[in-house]
């Protein structure tokens, strides 16, 4: 009988794993389960909300992915529990046995402990397509004019652009003193803030929500700020962080910390059970999720592979035509570090270097030819010699240019 490979979750990690399993195991039975009805890229949810794309257009695989790879897909199926002993997973409609299991259930958004936020009927997250659909329905049903968003990270700003696209006014509360605090410094943040404000957004920086007012239908109608000000709204969106989606594993005996505990091969504490992506709490960015999915899948198929490229403090953003790349902590207080800054009309660059090693970099404006920065930072390449002859922002891959015997580029030592 064919071996049964089960993947729970159809996000980046799950889909990358499915493709890899099919590559190695032509005859295995591959089953995917997802709570969603559409496999979608959550990085594009704002394009759905803004009316730029349909549900189908959020897919990051070919429309015939499941048929072509002969994968059985159980849509709209919530995983309820894991039975390690009997090697089966409990779904809403019964038990699914497995020979090998990959848990790629991602993360869930958190709701801050503000009065009524966790009980009101009009508080949403922005993580799954179902969240975007709920917001879409709420905008239509309420003919919403004003939305209160908690958090100005990438998710908060994404959902803001989607709503602004539809003419909804947004107020965004951010506890930090600047927008997108993990990726920006004050200067880069201001450039984004100005663009959002020019399109009608209002930011409350360094200000939290402290209370809210509800009506008799259990809907929040206004948020009360720590300053005492009251901001009226049609509904609230929480974009202030996520946590691994592991609550359903409680009592299963699977070892968890913040996320599911895995080794370098993405193996969990249970035999033949692997985990990848956000659910491991190892990284919250797309490329790493896909890598983890592929590593897990390879090991599930008996191809020994290790997850080594773990660097994950990296991101790009693109709002109102302004692009930005950030690698590392650009606000780090590193003793004895050199801070390089270069500003021109359309570009802002900042780099933190300690003992010749680049710690973090931010490029805002033209981000062409910036791929080498991640490599230099994560591999802690010493730049002292190069810095004697050129400015830091003039460093390119060309300074390390080398080709191997099949013509691929590599980094010269």
């Amino acid at each position, binding site marked *: 009988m064919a071996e049964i490979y089960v993947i729970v979750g159809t996000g*980046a990690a799950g889909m990358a794993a499915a493709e890899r399993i099919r590559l190695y195991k032509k005859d295995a039975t591959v089953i995917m389960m997802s709570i969603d009805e559409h496999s979608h*890229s959550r*990085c*594009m949810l704002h*394009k759905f909300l803004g009316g730029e794309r349909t549900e189908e257009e959020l*897919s*990051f*695989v*070919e429309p015939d992915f499941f048929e072509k790879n002969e994968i059985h897909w159980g849509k709209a199926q919530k995983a309820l529990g894991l039975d390690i002993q009997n090697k089966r997973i409990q779904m809403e409609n019964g038990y699914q046995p497995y020979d090998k299991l990959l848990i790629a259930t991602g993360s869930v958004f958190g709701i801050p402990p503000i009065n009524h936020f966790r009980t009101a009927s009009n508080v949403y997250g922005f993580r799954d397509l179902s969240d975007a659909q709920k917001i879409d329905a709420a905008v239509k049903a309420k003919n919403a004019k004003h939305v209160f968003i908690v958090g100005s990270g990438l998710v908060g700003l994404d959902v803001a652009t989607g709503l602004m696209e539809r003419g909804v006014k947004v107020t965004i509360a951010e506890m930090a003193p600047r927008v997108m605090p993990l990726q920006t410094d004050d200067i880069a943040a201001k450039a984004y803030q100005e663009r959002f404000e020019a399109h009608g957004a209002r930011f409350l920086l360094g200000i939290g929500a402290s209370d809210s007012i509800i009506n008799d239908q259990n809907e929040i109608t206004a948020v009360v700020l720590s300053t005492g000000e009251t901001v009226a709204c049609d509904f609230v969106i929480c974009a202030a962080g996520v946590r691994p989606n592991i609550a359903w594993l409680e009592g299963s005996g699977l070892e968890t910390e913040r996320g599911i505990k895995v080794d370098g091969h993405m193996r969990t504490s249970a035999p033949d059970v692997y985990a990848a992506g956000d659910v491991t709490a190892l990284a919250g*960015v*797309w*490329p790493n999720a*896909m*890598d983890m999915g592929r590593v897990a899948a390879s090991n599930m198929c008996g191809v020994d592979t290790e997850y080594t490229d773990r660097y994950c403090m*990296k*991101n*790009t953003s*693109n709002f109102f*035509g302004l*692009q930005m*790349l950030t*690698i590392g902590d650009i606000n780090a207080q590193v003793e004895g570090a050199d801070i390089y800054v270069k500003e021109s009309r359309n570009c802002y660059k900042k780099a933190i270097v300690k003992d010749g090693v680049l710690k973090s970099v931010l490029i805002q404006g*033209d*981000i*062409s*030819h*910036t*791929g*080498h*920065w*991640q*490599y230099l930072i994560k591999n802690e390449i010493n730049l002292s010699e190069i810095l004697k*002859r*050129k400015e830091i922002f003039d460093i*390119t*891959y*060309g300074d390390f*240019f080398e*080709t191997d015997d*099949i*013509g*691929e*580029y590599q*980094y010269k030592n």
Partner: protein
Amino acid sequence: MKRIMIDPSKCDGCKNCALACMDSHRMDGGDGVVTLNFTLPETEARNEILNDGKGGYLPMFCRHCSVPGCANSCMSGALKKDMETGHVMYDEKRCGACFMCVMNCPYGIPKPSADGTKILKCDFCNERPEGPACVAACPKQAIWVEEV
């Protein structure tokens, strides 16, 4: 797979490859560098020649890597390694312009388009039978196609 091989010692930095690339990807239906409008923002080469700082040149051409950092970071499915040709192809219609590929190519090859709505990268001139335009245009044989 077919790859554009590089011998930097032969490169004169003439950038005929860049012109050929621009011409090969022009959208106005014209053909031939002589009629190419260099001032259009969309007239942009997908390859580049860097100065090596020692009087020589470094041709920067997409390697269509065996493990492509760009495609491995793509959240829209726009970038994919074609299992038949081995080339990393880009579907502009799917692209979400997030630019994670720009960040994740260790060699800095894919770049945002001038209008910031998509990326530009080598498409091997869509596998045209006569091979990529850049290779045909190189007067020094600093780049050539090889089966690897």
